[in-house]
């Protein structure tokens, strides 16, 4: 057992696959971990016709790039990925297997780890070296309210599996190499009968009629608003600012605002000039959708709410007092 293996994900826009940004971040995490431990780092890509994808990675400082090709890996299935990666890991015996923490990884990596009698350490935000040999892996608890340090209890028989949270490592810190890393094709044994689910092509529910991504000012409301009737309060503020109204997931789940106004990992990604978050706690799935905003203002009654991690200006107070006062002051300022 040695070395780090990073399992990449790719997107396939206009027929030419390229590694997703979050995979490149996971790759940066892999290089960091390998350096800390003084071991080597390789990457794996899965699919069919992924030669160019493997080539894109071979310029990075990696020991090897494994190209895991099979027709049955063309479209993602949990069964296909678990079987293929189980074979690759058995053969190459890495000490650490890293993934980007994506919806796809959530779907198969826990099952893969189970095959090795291991537990995936999911959604890791930082990796520190420790004197004991095993690294300290940091992840969030209670939707970002607390951090926790985990230590893998490594055995010589199985690798440690971990997934890396979006935005925790920088893809621009990736080390390149002048000599390309060798690409190693890896043949997997996979039969159609081993794949028990039949996926259909991805689709979008309906064409978005609001383009939040284009809005220069966004006022976004979260569960702190308590009741549907109270949304009007925040809508009035948005109108005063000439802003689009957006929301966190629970507001859209409840049907208080349409899903097309949801910001976050399963909604829209926005980077307006101003993002004003009202009664939003700042869970990572929300933050990934808005932390690129130029200025962030947060109003939340909990001074420890994770939203204040990303806010430029914060108000620790009751939105039911602050929002009406702010609306009034804005209208007064506009004359």
């Amino acid at each position, binding site marked *: 057992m040695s070395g780090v293996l990073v399992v990449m994900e790719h997107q396939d826009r206009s027929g030419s696959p390229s590694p997703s940004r979050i995979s490149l971040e996971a790759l940066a995490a892999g290089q960091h971990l390998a350096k800390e431990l003084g071991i080597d780092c390789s990457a794996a890509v899965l699919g069919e016709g992924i030669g160019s994808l493997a080539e894109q990675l071979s310029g990075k400082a990696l020991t090897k790039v494994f190209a895991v090709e099979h027709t049955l890996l063309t479209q993602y299935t949990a069964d296909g990925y678990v079987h293929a990666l189980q074979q690759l890991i058995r053969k190459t015996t890495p000490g650490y297997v890293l993934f980007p923490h*994506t*919806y796809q990884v*959530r*779907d198969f990596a*826990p*099952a893969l780890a*189970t095959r090795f*009698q*291991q*537990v*995936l350490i*999911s*959604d890791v935000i930082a990796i520190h070296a420790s004197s004991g040999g095993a690294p300290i892996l940091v992840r*969030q*608890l*209670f*939707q970002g309210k607390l951090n*926790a*340090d*985990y*230590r*893998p*209890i490594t*055995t010589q028989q199985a690798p440690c599996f971990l997934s890396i949270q979006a935005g925790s490592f920088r893809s621009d810190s990736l080390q390149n190499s002048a000599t390309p890393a060798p690409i190693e094709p890896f043949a997997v044994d996979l039969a159609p009968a081993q794949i028990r*689910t*039949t996926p*259909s092509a*991805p*689709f*979008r529910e309906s064409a978005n009629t609001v383009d939040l991504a284009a809005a*220069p000012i966004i006022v976004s409301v979260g569960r702190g608003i308590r009741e549907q009737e109270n949304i009007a309060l925040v809508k009035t503020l948005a109108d005063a600012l000439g802003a689009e109204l957006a929301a966190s*997931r*629970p507001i*859209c*789940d409840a*049907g208080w605002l349409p899903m097309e106004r*949801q910001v976050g*990992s399963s*909604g*829209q990604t926005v980077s307006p*000039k*101003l993002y004003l978050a009202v009664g939003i706690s700042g869970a990572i799935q929300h933050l990934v959708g808005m932390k690129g905003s*130029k200025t962030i*203002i947060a109003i939340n009654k909990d*001074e420890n709410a994770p939203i*204040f991690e*990303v*806010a430029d*200006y*914060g*108000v*620790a107070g009751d939105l039911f*007092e*602050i929002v009406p*006062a702010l609306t*009034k*002051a*804005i209208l007064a*300022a*506009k004359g």
Partner: protein
Amino acid sequence: MKIIVAIKQVPERDAQIIVAPDGKGVDDRDLAYTINEPDAYALEEALQLKEKNGGEVIALCAGPDRVASTLREALAKGADRAIHVNAGDLAQRDTLALAQLLADAIRPESPDLILTGLQSDDLGLGQTGVVLAELLGMPHATLIMHVEATSSGLRVKRELEDGWFQHLDMPLPALLTIQSGGNKLRYATLMGIKKAKSKPTATITASPATVPPTIELTRVYLPEKQKRTQMLTGTPAEIAVQLVEKLQSEVRVL
């Protein structure tokens, strides 16, 4: 359709979370508990499937004595019976060991479908369902928004990133982890609460952990601030004036 819903009891959403004196967990002395929200959606999906297709809904929860209240709530909402895997040492068991406890309780029931929430609001590891499916040798799908019974099994709607979705067909028995928002959650009715009193709960004592955990939680702490947030203070009116000033001179949107 015989459906088992695996639910977890977690601290209430607005609970004041305080690090325990030993720094290895949270102080649970004054915590109030409730059903993990994604699990509430899993229960709702199960109840609606039963209403459409007939069958039975069994609520399953592992944990100490206190989780009985969460199982009672599930019964009051419409589950037919409950299974409590009584274990006071869950903090010492990792996801694999916990899933093994659940798998042992599920096997004798031979359900057609197992539902659970996609992750817990406290630990957020998001794996119990998938590990459970693997242990039981069942196909699974995660982040499910909608479930429909078909002649050959199930057709489910899975959430992908950035507002995309995907349909999946799969045979039964199967396990699904449910994402929030697919349904509207019901409340327990007075009648439901009354009926729950006569519904059976089987209690199984958890067998001791046989394998050592594969991960160890060594420290829990408040996150260090990455960014300097300028906090504005004063009366609401004073704060409003300061904010307007920022909007005019710095953010330049007014």
